[in-house]
């Protein structure tokens, strides 16, 4: 096992811990906005995971997923955030 392998292990461990923490906040809330922030954070972490995987294999097969997930996460969070704002206006 050389230094690079240790680096990959450390990276996956840190990213995995980050995903677990994000899920904790996602479950706990307390508001819709918190969950939206978590949703976006999860999608960015997912993109990071895929990017590391691409580097680990040296195989660009999954690289399309990097861009696709990044854009999907962005559009999803933005749409939900706008919807949350609309609801607040309707109530007021």
């Amino acid at each position, binding site marked *: 096992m050389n230094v690079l392998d240790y*680096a990959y292990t450390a990276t996956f461990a*840190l*990213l995995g811990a980050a995903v677990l923490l994000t899920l904790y906040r996602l479950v706990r809330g307390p508001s819709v906005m918190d969950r939206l922030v*978590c949703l976006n954070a999860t999608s960015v972490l997912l993109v990071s995971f895929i990017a590391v995987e691409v*580097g680990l294999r040296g195989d660009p097969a999954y690289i399309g997923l*990097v861009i696709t997930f990044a854009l999907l996460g962005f559009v999803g969070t933005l749409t939900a955030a706008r919807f949350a704002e609309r609801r607040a206006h309707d109530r007021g």
Partner: protein
Amino acid sequence: MTAADIATAVLLPLGAAFAFVGTVGLVRFPTLLGRVHAATKPDTVALVLILAGTAFQLPDIRVAAWLGLAALFQFLTVPVLAQTLGRVAYSRGEISAEHLIADELADAVERSRQGRGDGGRGPE
């Protein structure tokens, strides 16, 4: 062990560490706006570092162009997202006043309400 491998071995864990600490902030900060800060922007630094680390492992410059495109999208989307989340959070009134030492937007809304006879648009 080449120079590219060393660069990857430094950049990837560094990026993951940024992502991790940002998530710690996401869990521990008491205010929503603080959590928005912690969740969106260290993640950007993390993603850029990770993409750079990955680029050193790729055989082909064309594939690296994809990674550059992903980093560019991240730079374009994060401000929009952060700003929208902040605005919506404020308009929903989900800010805790005891963690703000000044709120000049509320002051301005108050002023315009008084000036226009409660015609001001602002947080409910």
